[in-house]
């Protein structure tokens, strides 16, 4: 079974400051890793994904994440946040072995940008 832990339920950050949202996963097999963003009253939008290859992946809106297999982590970072980044961020994992594999989500981190 796979699981995802997002230790920080809420992260307040001043505008233009850097941010890191932490994600750790547990799996007995190889994984695909994802970060989704949920803006208020909207659905889930993919920010970025790690499938294989380079451990540093870049996504939309200036976000990036680094896959660290030894620490089983996939932390999300942005060097300078904007008010529009206020949202809920979900880390998710799936297995690469079957095409129909479901996503297992973490509990989410609410990012609040302080002007």
């Amino acid at each position, binding site marked *: 079974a796979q699981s995802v832990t997002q230790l920080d339920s809420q992260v307040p950050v001043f505008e233009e400051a850097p941010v890191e949202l932490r994600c750790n996963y547990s799996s007995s097999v190889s994984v695909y890793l994802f970060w989704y963003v949920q803006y208020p009253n909207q*659905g889930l939008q*993919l920010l970025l*994904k790690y499938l294989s290859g380079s451990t540093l992946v870049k996504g939309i809106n200036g976000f990036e994440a680094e896959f660290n297999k030894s620490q089983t982590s996939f932390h999300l970072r942005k060097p300078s946040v904007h008010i529009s980044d206020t949202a809920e961020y979900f880390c998710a994992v799936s297995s690469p072995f079957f095409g129909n594999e*479901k*996503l297992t*989500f973490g*509990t*989410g981190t609410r990012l609040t940008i302080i002007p």
Partner: protein
Amino acid sequence: EPEVTQTPSHQVTQMGQEVILRCVPISNHLYFYWYRQILGQKVEFLVSFYNNEISEKSEIFDDQFSVERPDGSNFTLKIRSTKLEDSAMYFCASKLNTEAFFGQGTRLTVV
């Protein structure tokens, strides 16, 4: 850009009533999913659907739930007799290979 469409956006129903949540996945996608998010909690997997049959379902997806893809485009989730604890945001998702695309969700309120 193609998107997953869900209707209605909000649904209020009385306990014990049947509800059908509708989704139009992206047209060339092969895998279809329903997830739910109870207010303040994480997004939970309900069921996956491939090749016109359920490929996996969670413990939440009991006999009160069913899914259909009746006409090759729509993908529906039916709850036969709703309970108060079914109140949640329900998300449909579809996938071609590695990336799942989500709809905007249907907020179901059972009163």
